[in-house]
């Protein structure tokens, strides 16, 4: 399949005449998250980062479902819709498919995207609609006051699981890769620089970009990502993936990741095997197998968590192809003629 131009996620979105400010992208609405919520950091990052894209503010749209994260559109001074629990990817698909001139962002939580809206998420990903899907994963239901979520660890004690949860959780990155996503990344709410770089890569990607943002809910699941954040543990926990670079982590990069002879990945001491033996991260690999293995390298609970862009490949987008079919039909047969359409098929005249 040939990939039609354009190849940048924003190429059909009109550019701003002058660079906007963070203030201009900030709405006048009072932000109502709990003090200390990780959502504040993500909002601040987005409000600063969006102007940098150089797009007209009126051509940016943020669509959300329901949940704490889903209040996001109210705080961005762009067009926005706070819709229905789980349905934001579907609504955004309709908008992006009919309006190529918009940069469409979808914001939701782990309940929104992985639970009630799981179906819409996987189909938006496989279709490769030009949407940026940001999933704030706090591994808990916040707005409904603290039930376990589809990303909560087994055994979690919550209001609805007083004996410990028994559902096996999703790994969101693995799920997205399995759903044929063309862009999959993970980042952390508190790491502004990393978060911004991942968001930029997502914005530039033409197609569906899935970004899992690990987000602290300090009311119902405080400290869920402390291993990744605390100075004493973060170096050994966070595996920063960079395209074209060997996969290394740990204090001073002492540890690395190597393709195991048995298949799968091994964590090794770099000093023992040498850097040349390490896996070099290829985000553009046509097949998602290695990205999938990386996504399962560890998890937050055992303290090894890969972050960064796991996969970024080109594939024709759904919305571009819809437009292409329409353009081709008009180019081949001319624009539709209503009177001729009504009179198509067998007709007869009564005089």
């Amino acid at each position, binding site marked *: 399949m040939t990939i039609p131009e354009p190849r940048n996620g924003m190429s059909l979105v009109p550019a701003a005449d002058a660079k906007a400010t963070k203030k201009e992208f900030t709405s006048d609405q009072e932000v109502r998250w709990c003090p200390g919520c990780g959502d504040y950091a993500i909002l601040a990052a987005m409000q600063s980062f969006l102007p940098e894209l150089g797009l007209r503010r009126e051509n940016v749209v943020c669509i959300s479902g329901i949940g704490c994260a889903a209040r996001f559109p109210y705080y961005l001074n762009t067009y926005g819709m706070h819709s229905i629990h789980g349905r934001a990817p579907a609504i955004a698909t*309709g908008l992006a498919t*009919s309006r190529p001139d918009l940069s469409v962002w979808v914001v939701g939580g782990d309940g929104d995207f992985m639970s009630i809206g799981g179906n819409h998420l996987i189909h938006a990903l496989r279709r490769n609609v030009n949407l940026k899907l940001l999933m704030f994963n706090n591994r808990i239901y916040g707005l409904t006051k603290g039930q376990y979520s589809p990303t909560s660890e087994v055994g979690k004690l919550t209001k609805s699981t007083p004996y410990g949860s028994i559902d096996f959780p999703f790994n969101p990155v693995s799920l997205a890769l399995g759903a044929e996503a063309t862009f999959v990344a993970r980042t952390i709410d508190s790491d502004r620089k990393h978060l911004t770089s991942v968001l930029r890569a997502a914005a530039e990607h033409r197609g569906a970009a899935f970004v899992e943002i690990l987000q602290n809910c300090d009311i119902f699941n405080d400290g869920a990502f402390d291993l990744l954040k605390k100075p004493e543990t973060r170096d050994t926990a966070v595996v920063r993936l960079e395209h074209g670079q060997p996969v290394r982590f740990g204090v001073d990069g002492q540890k690395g990741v190597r393709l195991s002879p048995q298949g799968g990945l091994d964590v090794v001491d770099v000093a023992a095997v040498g850097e040349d033996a390490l896996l070099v991260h290829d985000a553009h690999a046509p097949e998602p197998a290695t990205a999938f293995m990386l996504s399962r390298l560890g998890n937050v609970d055992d303290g090894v968590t890969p972050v960064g862009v796991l996969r970024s490949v080109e594939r024709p987008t759904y919305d571009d192809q819809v437009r292409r079919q329409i353009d081709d039909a008009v180019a081949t047969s001319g624009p539709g003629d209503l009177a001729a359409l009504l009179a198509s098929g067998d007709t007869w005249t009564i005089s």
Partner: protein
Amino acid sequence: MGVRGVSKEVRQKDRVIIRFAGDSGDGMQLTGDRFTSETAELGNDLSTLPDFPAEIRAPAGTLPGVSAFQLHFADHDVMTPGDRPDVLVAMNPAALKANIGDLPAGADVIVNTDEFTPRALAKVGYAANPLEDDSLSAYQVHAIPLTSLTVKALETFEISRKDAERAKNMFALGLLSWLYHRPVESTLAFLQRKFAAAPELARANVTASNAGWNFGETTEAFTVRYEVKPAVMPPGLYRNITGNIALAYGLIASSQRSGLPLFLGSYPITPASDILHELSKHKRFGVRTFQAEDEIAGVGAALGAAFGGAIGVTTTSGPGVDLKSETIGLAVTLELPLVVCDIQRAGPSTGMPTKAEQSDLLLAMFGRHGEAPVPIVAPLSPSDCFDAAIEAVRIALKYRTPVFLLSDAYLANGSEPWLLPDVASLPDLRVEFATEPNHTKADGTAEFWPYLRDPETLARPWAVPGTAGLEHRVGGIEKADGSGNISYDPSNHDTMVRLRQAKIDGIVRDIPPLAVDDPTGDAEVLVLGWGSTYGPIGAAVRLVRESGAKVAQAHLRHLNPLPANTGDVLRAYRRVLIPEMNLGQLALLIRARYLVDAISYTQVRGMPFKSDELVDALRDVIDT
């Protein structure tokens, strides 16, 4: 005159009802469609009723596997597909058994004797061959070995025996075309097109059709031919059209007349899928069709497209409406245009997917949590689906509201001749998007208030993304009157609930009054209907009047709001009868709204009313 010159008497008839019936694999729908085209071309008025099983290939030779197509044509105005067939074409014992009960005494029955084997007879519970005992003595039975005659006619063709046997429907069509003097040229041209890739099959099917015609001319099984003269119809260009195609065309016309792109979000479901199929062909009109992952995504995407300035449409049937309810509620509070086409079928749950019912009226009225009023428009005949679709889009665009279009399986698949409208005379549906701020802040700066309403229509401004200066957020949370900001203020909610209701109620000023057909002006009984019962009610009213009794008829196009004069109309009659294909849903609304003691007359057999039963129901009411 046939080759052997058997002379045939020609009899004039004013109307004929034919039912083709066979296995679902026998091609009965195609045969019916072709006979319909020939009949339309001849200039008869007509109405059709396809009736097929939900299963694609139900077990062969069984009663549930019977697929039928009924056609009523006449030299005058036809209102229904007809109650009782004058002619039954039965391709096997199952088709005979399933349909014989509907025939009046003296009807013609053409049976394919090749299929009347002991095994096939036993399969449907015939202890003895009905062709050999006197159980069919009330009918004119024409026992014809259709399959073997077809195979024989095609013996020189290089096609498989199976292909030869399958052409038996064209043999039957040729025979019926001969019997009723139908012009077959369009069918022959159709066969050439259909089998363009297999010329031998094309020739074989043409030959089978000709063989059927010639058989009629030469056999002694038929001594009489019939003629039905063309009907007197208004002059103009006509085509035959089904409800689903007319509905699809109405949506395309709405896009053309509004200048807005059409976006369909839909999930396949019987009997609505043909609208998706049809619209997906018309990319030249800029139509975007999105086959969604589920019903919810279908309506969600349509709403998303509407937010972006498109005509957002979703097509479905009852089970899909259940799933879409939450999104329709969101559209109510977002106050964005959205058209929800519900092609009603027999429920509850899966029910009978290919059979018609009018049982989603109250679902459309009330099937959402909270106070969530939605206008409802209903077509009354297959071709009327075109106008009803345009009306639904008109209301949605003008009042920024979701609108229900309630068609049903009978309208969807049934067909009738359609006098093509003059495109330039279709309603002008242009709307204006908001382009400027509409409110001044205390500090004198201008801003945009998404919920500042048009004082006349109470519609809010439609400001689409890409419009500088009008950036705004909308959502499901209650909004402050005017500014649209989130508001949990109790009295604001009270205001907003009432405003949303008042907006829908106010549409009453923008729809025509309920018209009453009461020729003498002194009828005491009114029959009130909505949707697809228009034909059967009209036919029954005609019969009652012909017998000298008086009855008035009114039919609702708009179910919400109801026309302003509805109460006055109802109160002007001593009795009001409301026939419906549900258990009295419109009657419930009418009684609640107008305190009128309307009489509900209902059936839910999945098929349209028979005019005869409505005549009886009307007489009962007139006589008491």
